[in-house]
C-alpha cells in the first residue's frame, strides 16, 4: 500500500489534469483546422494511464496505442515536444515524422504509440525479455483497448509471456467501444479479464474511473511480476469523453451518454472528491495545479504553432542508420 502524501497526490493529479487539458485543448485546435491527420483523444481515461504509470520508472517500459497521448504524458514525455509532434513540427518529439499515432520517448521507457491495433503487446513481451535478462526487476506494460483484445497478436503475446513467465502487465482499457462498435458485441465472452485468466495469468477487473483503484490493482500486478511470477492482466472499465477519432459523429452512443459520463464518471472529479473528503488535499492546492497545467498547455500550443515545420531534406533521413 502506498502511503499518500501531498507530493505523490499532487503529482498524480497534475499528470491526470495535464492529460485532460492537453486533450480538451487539442479538440479545439483540431476543430479550428490547426492540426492535420487522425487524432484519438484520451479524455476520460486518465485514471488508467496515471494509476498505472505512477508506479513506473524510466527503466520500466510501456507500449501504447493509437490513443496514446495519455500514456505518453503519464510516462513522463515532454508535453511541449508532444504538442509540437502532433502539430508536425521539426522539433517535435519525433521530428514531426510520427504524428499523434507515433509518439515515442526512449529515454522515458515509452516505446511508442502504435497505429496498428494489437501491434504493441508483442513488443512489450520483447521489452520484458530485455528487462528480465538485465536482471533489475524492471517490467513492461502493454496498454490496449477492449477492441485490441480481439486481435490475434495480443493473444499470442499473452501466451508467450505466460510461457516465459515474463514481467509484462497487460492493461486493457475497456471504454465500451472499438470505433463504432460496442465492446459487448465484439468481445464474445463479454469478459476481457476472464479471457486473460484463460491464458494462465492472474487477471482482475478494476474501476478505471477511480485512480486509487487502478493504482492499488497495479501495485498487486507489479508485486507479482517483479517477484518473477510472470505476467498479470488488468481490465479497467472506463469511458472516453470524445469520439473515436476527432470528427466522429458518435451515432452509436446514446444522445446524453458523454454528458452523463462527464457528470458521473469523471476520474478527475472522483479524485478531487476523494482527496478532499479524506482531507488529504484542499481545493486550493488542486486549483493551483489546474492553473499551472492550463498555463503549460497554453504555452505548448503557442510554441507548437510558432515552431517551424521539418525541412524537406528530412524526407529520406532516419530510414536506416547506415545504408
Amino acid at each position, binding site marked *: 500500500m502506498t502511503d499518500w502524501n501531498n507530493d505523490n497526490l499532487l503529482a498524480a493529479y497534475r499528470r491526470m489534469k495535464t492529460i485532460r487539458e492537453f486533450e480538451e485543448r487539442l479538440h479545439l485546435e483540431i476543430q479550428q483546422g490547426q492540426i*492535420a*491527420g*487522425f487524432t484519438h483523444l484520451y479524455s476520460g481515461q486518465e485514471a488508467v494511464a496515471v494509476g498505472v504509470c505512477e508506479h513506473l520508472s524510466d527503466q520500466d517500459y510501456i507500449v501504447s496505442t493509437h490513443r496514446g497521448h495519455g500514456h505518453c504524458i503519464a510516462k513522463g514525455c515532454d508535453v511541449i515536444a508532444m504538442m509540437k509532434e502532433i502539430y*508536425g*513540427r521539426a522539433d517535435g518529439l519525433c521530428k*514531426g*515524422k*510520427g*504524428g*499523434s*499515432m*507515433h509518439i515515442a520517448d526512449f529515454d522515458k521507457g515509452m516505446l511508442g504509440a*502504435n*497505429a*496498428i*491495433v*494489437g*501491434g504493441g503487446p508483442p513488443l512489450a513481451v520483447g521489452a520484458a525479455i530485455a528487462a528480465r535478462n538485465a536482471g533489475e526487476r524492471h517490467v513492461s506494460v502493454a496498454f490496449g483497448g477492449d*477492441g*485490441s483484445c*480481439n*486481435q*490475434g*497478436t495480443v493473444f499470442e503475446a499473452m501466451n508467450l509471456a505466460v510461457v516465459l513467465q515474463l514481467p509484462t502487465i497487460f492493461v486493457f482499457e475497456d471504454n*465500451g*467501444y*472499438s*470505433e*463504432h*462498435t*460496442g*465492446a*459487448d*458485441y*465484439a*468481445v*464474445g465472452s463479454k469478459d476481457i479479464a476472464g479471457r486473460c485468466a484463460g491464458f494462465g495469468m492472474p487477471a482482475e477487473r478494476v474501476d478505471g474511473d477511480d485512480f486509487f483503484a487502478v493504482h492499488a490493482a497495479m501495485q498487486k500486478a507489479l508485486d507479482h511480476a517483479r517477484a518473477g511470477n510472470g505476467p498479470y492482466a488488468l481490465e479497467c472499465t472506463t469511458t472516453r469523453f470524445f469520439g473515436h477519432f476527432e470528427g466522429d459523429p458518435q*451515432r*452509436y*452512443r*446514446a*444522445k446524453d*451518454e458523454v454528458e452523463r459520463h462527464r457528470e458521473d464518471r469523471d476520474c478527475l472529479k472522483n479524485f478531487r472528491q476523494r482527496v478532499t473528503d479524506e482531507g488529504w488535499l484542499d481545493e486550493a492546492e488542486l486549483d493551483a495545479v489546474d492553473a499551472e497545467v492550463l498555463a503549460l498547455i497554453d504555452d505548448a500550443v503557442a510554441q507548437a504553432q510558432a515552431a517551424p*515545420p*521539418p525541412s*524537406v531534406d*528530412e*524526407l*529520406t533521413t532516419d*530510414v536506416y542508420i547506415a545504408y
Partner: protein
Amino acid sequence: MTETTFRQALNDAMFEEMRRDERVIILGEDVSGGAGGTSGERDASGGIFGVSKGLIFEFGEDRVIDTPISESAIIGAGAGAALAGLRPISEIMFADFVGVCMDQIYNQAAKFRYMFGGKTRCPLVIRTAMGAGMNMGAQHSQTIYPILTGVPGLKVVVPSNAADAKGLLKTAIRDDDPVVFFEHKALYNRKCEVPDGEHLVPFGEAAMPREGDDCTVVAMGRMVVFAEKAIDGLAASGITCDLIDPRTLSPLDTDTIFESLEHTGRLVIVDESPPRCSVASDIAGIVASEAFGSLRAPIKLVTAPHAPVPFARELERAYMPGPGDIAAAIQDVCNG
C-alpha cells in the same frame, strides 16, 4: 450518365450486386457499425469511409456482418465462405493492415484453386482503402498493391475514377477468382460521370484517358489524376502523351502499353509506392525485356522515395509524386 462520387459509385455497385445475387455478403469492422452501442442505431458507421452505408437495412445482419478487430478472421472467414459457395466481400479498413492477415490472403485464398488441382474456386473480394495524402502517418497511408500484384492466384484492381470504380467492383464481385480491390482514400469524394444502368468494366483492359505522340505515361490510382494534370499542363509546350491507366495490375494489359510505345518510343511510369519491387519498376522491367525495341530513351520512374510515409504536411507533400514531378519527368524523356 450521372455525376457520382467515387464513394457513391462503390456503394451503388455493392447494392446492385447484393440485390442481383444473394450469395454476396460483406464483412468487416464497422461495415454497418453501432452493434452493441447505447444508441441502438445500426449503420452508425456504414464503413469508416461510408462506402457500405445503408446495406444493412436492405440486406440484414446475415449478409452485412460487423466483425471484431480480427483481420485474419475477416479474410479467412471470407475465404472459407467463398469455398462454401458464397461470394463474400471482406473489408480491410486500411490497406496497411494486410500485415496482420497476409497469410489468409496470399497462402490461403490465392492458392486454393491451384493447390487443390482446380477443384474449387474462391470468389472472394477484398476491399481496402489505401494511399497517402491525409497525414495519417506511416501505418495508415501505404499503397501496398505491389506485394499483392506479385502473388499468383490474386487479381489486383486499382481504380482511378468513379465510373471505373463501379464497373470494376461489379466485375470483381462476379469474378470467380480472389480479387484485391484498392480504393484510394483521396479519391472517395471525387466525382465523375458514371454510366446509368448496368456498368461493367472488364479486367485486363487498360484505359487511355489521354492520347498523344511524344511519350507514353503509365499511372495508376490517384496518380492518374496527377498525370492528367501534368499532361494537360504540357499541351501548351507542345508535348502530347498517351496516358495509360492499367486499372487492373493483375492481370496487366501489356498490349496497350507496348502498342503505345511503338508509337511514342518513350515511357514514364508513375506509382505512389516506394521504388523497389514496385509496380513501376515491374512494368519497366517487362518493357525492357519484351518491348525493348520500341524504347528510344531511358524509362523514367516517378515514385515515392524509399522511405515510410511521413506525418508532417510538408514532408508528406514532398513524399507523394505530384503533377510537377510527372511533368518534369515527361519533359526529361522527351528532351533528354
